[in-house]
């Protein structure tokens, strides 16, 4: 069966570190970074890039529209 591969691109400066994307991800792809952005928020980052299937859950729940998602079927 073909596997879906996804990439999440996070606007880390816009991110407020609310963690809702981390909770929404069914595969624990995302986590809050140890470092902070210019506003002082621990922004969300991708920690398990290879696991992401591009399901968009993180982006859909993001209240600030920080996440862009790409998805491609693995041949």
């Amino acid at each position, binding site marked *: 069966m073909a596997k879906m591969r996804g990439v999440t691109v996070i606007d880390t400066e816009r991110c407020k570190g609310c963690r809702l994307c981390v*909770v929404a991800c069914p595969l624990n792809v995302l986590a809050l970074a140890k470092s902070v952005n210019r506003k002082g928020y621990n922004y969300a980052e991708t920690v398990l890039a290879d696991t992401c299937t*591009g399901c968009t859950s993180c982006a859909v729940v993001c209240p600030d529209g920080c996440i862009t998602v790409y*998805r491609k079927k693995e041949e």
Partner: protein
Amino acid sequence: MDIKEIMQPENLVYKKPELLNDTAMHYCPGCSHGVVHKLISEVIAEMGMENKTVGVSPVGCAVFAYKYIDIDWEEAAHGRAPALASAVKRLWPDRLVFTYQGDGDLACIGTAETIHALNRGENITIVFVNNAIYGMTGGQMAPTTLMGMKTATCPYGRDAKLHGYPLKVADIAASLEGTCYVTRQSVHTVGAINKAKRALRKAFEYSMQGKGSSLVEMVSTCNSGWKLSPEKANKWMEENMFPFYNLGDIKDTGANNQ
């Protein structure tokens, strides 16, 4: 597969809606308002109404909604948004006209404007963000604050003897002849957000089809006001808000009323 190979325009599956501009929103981290703003932006664009929409923003946390969604806006006095929207729609019948209001604005100071706009069957949509608290002013009791819930002005919990009871606006709205669609939605999970978006789309379409007034209540969190993390606020909402503010369509006469 290489990341660059995946990150191609043809593989794009989600991005911030175009109508939602790049201005950083003033909302607290995890606030439901941001999701509702995204849904409104998406639905307007999907209906192709970017150039024919007038939004009316309230007084409350969403007072600056006009800074984030790139449509024409009018900023109303506290509670008066449905009066503004009534006039705009009657004077420009081919425009999509909606108000965006919180519980203090809509269900307290603006009760008369809300009830009468809905009861006249104005062809507008009222988007009602209910988080059971006054967010902007620092977490005071709202007309929708649950029994026993603690806020800055009911620090020992809402007590019926002192404060009366929480108001179910959507149920009142559903009893009015002028409404064609009244629904209660939430935006805390992917499933809920997809449902809420469909509800918003239906309401906006009914407005354009002249079927009457729609009220889309978004049962929401105010994690700052509730003094919970966004994640815990969602859980608290599921456990405490949903049993009182039941989700789902309360009234939908739009489909059979031509």
